[in-house]
């Protein structure tokens, strides 16, 4: 009988054997006022694999994602306990430059949110405020490189002066990814990056995620389990503020260990 766990054939889709841990979280608890939104979450995110967070609405997956570049700082009632490290450095320690942190840990949101500026300026914005380009030529190179890596160059090169908001939804989202890439981040967090896109635009983003894999540590939150299965090598399932199960995507979707994971991914939840 053939090995149903399919070893060699789909090796490329499986989690990398040797991994470099990029971010670690230990016993993270998050409260919004008196309400606890996350309970004791511990996880390692690697450079080589795309990590997907799945779970029903309100399970804490986006909350956790937002802890990873301190986006929860902007929520007045939010309180984060525990430890989150980027390359071994505690991102919540005193004196951490949050703006610098968010350049290293970029984010792409659910709804494409390009600035009401030209395509060029959307991409150039980050490098400009972080002073990454000395000359106009440097900046041109960064903009072109970022748009190329985001798979948008061919569509954008002849209209760099046009407003980013004039692009289609899928192009806008790729523009946001180009904008995130432009400051040369180490980690890219994606919060439901395709939920506002049609299937073709979604496929392009998924292909892009696959191309960016390895170069950046990528974490994606998605409601679409098929998407998690398609783009990630590691999957974490969240439920009611706890991380129920974390493992190789191929195992989570064929043979999850936890009954709650099974119920959720097979559509038996609630």
């Amino acid at each position, binding site marked *: *009988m053939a*090995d*149903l*766990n399919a070893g060699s054939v789909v090796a490329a889709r499986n989690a990398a054997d040797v991994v470099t841990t990029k971010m670690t979280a230990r016993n993270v608890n998050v409260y919004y006022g008196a309400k606890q939104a996350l309970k004791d979450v511990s996880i390692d995110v690697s450079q080589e694999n795309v990590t997907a967070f799945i779970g029903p609405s309100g399970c804490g997956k986006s909350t956790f994602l937002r802890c990873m570049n301190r986006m929860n700082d902007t929520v007045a009632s939010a309180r984060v306990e525990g430890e989150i490290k980027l390359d071994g450095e505690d991102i919540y320690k005193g004196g951490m430059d949050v703006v610098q942190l968010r350049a290293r840990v970029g984010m792409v949101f659910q709804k494409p949110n390009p600035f009401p500026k030209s395509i060029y300026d959307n991409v150039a914005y980050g490098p400009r405020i972080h002073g990454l380009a000395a000359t106009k030529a440097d900046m041109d190179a960064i903009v072109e490189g970022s748009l190329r890596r985001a798979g948008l160059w061919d569509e954008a090169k002849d209209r760099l002066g046009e407003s980013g908001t004039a692009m289609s939804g899928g192009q806008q989202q790729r523009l946001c990814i180009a904008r995130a890439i432009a400051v040369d981040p180490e980690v890219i967090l994606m919060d439901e990056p395709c939920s506002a896109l049609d299937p073709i635009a979604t496929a392009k983003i998924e292909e892009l995620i696959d191309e960016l894999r390895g170069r950046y540590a990528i974490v994606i939150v998605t409601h679409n*389990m*098929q998407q998690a*299965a398609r783009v990630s090598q590691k999957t974490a399932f969240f439920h009611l503020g706890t991380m129920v199960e974390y493992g190789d995507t191929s195992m*989570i*979707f*064929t*043979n*999850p260990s936890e009954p709650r*994971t*099974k*119920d959720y*991914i*097979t*559509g*038996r*939840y*609630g």
Partner: protein
Amino acid sequence: MADQTSHTVKSYDDDIHQLRSLISQMGGLCEAQIIDAIDALTRRDAEAALKVVATDARIDALEGEAEKLAIQIIALRAPMATDLREIVACLKISSVLERIGDYAKNIAKRASALAQAAPIEPMVIVPEMARVVAVMVKDVLDAFVDRDPELALAVCQRDQTVDNFYSSLFRSLLTFMMENPHHITPSTHLLFIAKNLERIGDHATNVAEMVHYSATGHLISERPRGDDTAFATSAAA
């Protein structure tokens, strides 16, 4: 593993239930076909044998239905985890059962040929061997219905008994043919019948492996290989 709670979308449960009952029907028919074919053989009833041959078409038709439904579920429901394993298992089990049906049909064809020939003595082992095989098929389908990996494992372990029957029948038929060339035609038919039964036993263990995988997510590790008497030369036998 029988604790399958319902899907939020109820019609999904209906689809899976329908697929599983198609497999159960196929299994029930296969079991009956084996018993009826051997019954026709022992009673030397050519007419009953031909009825078994004709009934095989029903198993083939059910396989087609099961395959269509399984593909439809995969396409429309995007099954995951336990559901995915179960549907893949159903798909594979249906094709294995179809093969089992073919073997039963072949036994029946030979039974109708043997009904015309003089009865031979090694014949007496065959019904007992068939009984063991039919119970394996029955048990493996019970394991499927109950999603019971332990029962599936038990069926696998019984395959050795069938192999032993086959080896012993092979030896006696060989001796028998050497003694008298007139025995060659009926003995050859009987040898093929025994071989068919032995193959059904193997297929029942294949089904058991799929039931086990579907229920647990783990493969049964490699089973020990059987005796190789059947490959011995006539001098050695």
